[in-house]
């Protein structure tokens, strides 16, 4: 009973070791909004988004919910940086998207607050939405996980020592 409790406690302790947040399956929905004649959905990686290249994907649907695949989607990302704003522009395309219903672009963002403006043009109609994004400083992803990675090494060393003791006892006998 005691050993089982110890085992459970060890597992809980190991799982609770310091760690950063994990990434989600394909990102999080940042916004889903009706704009003009469209419904726009914006995907980004889930929080916290580390500084660096990130995938910004957009789903454009018409009023019936059908995806529109022949539109033009541009992204304008603005971040206040000192006296002047830092501005990035990118065209989101199906080629850059994994799910070909989406329009995607990879943009390299530094840490800090960003405003993402999505502009969609289709059939003479234009719609735009604005979404704030907060980018966290880039971190070494493994920094928080060294105890997890050390575990096999420790276990192997203990096992090797155990086997050495067993063998030496066997040879003495």
């Amino acid at each position, binding site marked *: 009973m005691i050993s089982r409790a110890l085992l459970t406690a060890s597992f809980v302790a190991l*799982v609770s070791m310091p760690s950063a947040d*994990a990434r989600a399956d394909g990102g999080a*929905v940042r*916004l889903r909004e009706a704009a003009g004649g469209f419904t726009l959905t914006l995907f980004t990686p889930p929080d916290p988004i580390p500084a660096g290249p*990130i995938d910004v994907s957009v789903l454009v649907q018409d009023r019936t919910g059908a995806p529109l695949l022949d539109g033009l989607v541009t992204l304008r990302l603005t971040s206040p940086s000192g006296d002047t704003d830092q501005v990035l522009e990118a065209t989101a395309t199906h080629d850059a998207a994994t799910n070909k219903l989406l329009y995607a672009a990879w943009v390299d963002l530094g840490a800090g607050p960003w405003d993402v403006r999505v502009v969609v043009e289709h059939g003479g109609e234009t719609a735009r939405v604005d979404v704030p994004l907060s980018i966290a400083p880039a971190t070494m992803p493994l920094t928080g996980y060294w105890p997890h990675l050390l575990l*096999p090494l420790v276990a192997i060393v203990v096992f090797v020592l155990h086997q050495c003791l067993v063998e030496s006892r066997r040879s003495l006998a």
Partner: protein
Amino acid sequence: MLPPPWLRSKWFAIVLLVGFLWAYETFDLWDSPWWTAWLILAYFVGALTVDTLFKGASFCKYVCPIGQFHFVQSLVSPLEVSIRRPDACANCRTHDCLRGNERARGCELDLFLPRKVGNLDCTFCLDCVHACPHDNVGIMARVPARDLVWDAPRASIGRLSRRTDVAVLALVVVFGGFAGAAAMVAPVRTWQEAVAGRLGLASSKPIMSVMLLAVIVVAPIVFAWLADVSARAIGARELGRRFALTLVPVGVTMWVAHLLFHLLSGWDSVLPVVQRALVDVGWVRSASPDWAAAGGGGAQLLGIEILLLDAGLLVSLYAMWRTARASVPRPITALGAMLPWAGVAVGLYCAGIWTFLQPMQMRGMMMR
């Protein structure tokens, strides 16, 4: 009638499994309800045809790629359908667990319970449990991964150390776990697009195909050959096949970590999906599903994934050591024999850790 000799092994199922793993990523089957429906239909037609033409559960045993996938995973299961008391079987003359009776069919997969070892080829249908008139068969606890180090003769299977097809199947499942996960991360997809662009290809599918086939087919063949050569060198030819099986724990934990990632990171999409379903069936008149509530991911997920892979690596290394020691008397020779396979296990472990740290490609699944 009996299935033809060429079907009575795992080779055909291995080809189907490789084909499925390749097609799933190369043609984005996850993105195509159309292909998913056809696959399911083909599966049922295939199962009905094979089991109509041939006796026994030939489809489960020789054809079904999903079944083979689970058979390999079950090598590290903590549960097993087995007998309770050997003496009850020793006195049994009817062998109902195999032949069946009026209460239940016997084992369609030809597994005679007193000589059954481990879960390989067992579908857990429990026909044998219901058929046994002595109430001597049940689901029993056992030491996980014991199958990997115990090379006893098995009913209908024989010794695993003599089954090259089972060893290759295990390698395909193990390497498939790492290749499948790596194929889903953004840097690998970006790299494939870049290579395709440099080669002037219109699509990255050929690059994906080459990558997957290199990892799932070529790597297992190369490692199996190297294992055979090194095992012959120390005069224990059958060790190669047994070492191939010892990679199963690290492969299984990679699959578990991978699938757990999808399950936990998509878990919070339950709410908007239910909202949408309620609107679709008309129980709620108008409500906009809160899609932004989904896709947050689990805070401790990466830690759990690494710990799972830690456990898989350690069990694999331990199984290698036990396997080597059982065949080679001197510890230092045993260590030398297992070292190449330990290197493979550590290499797979590092590949798994790298994969966990990469961002998953943007699939936008929750909006479909």
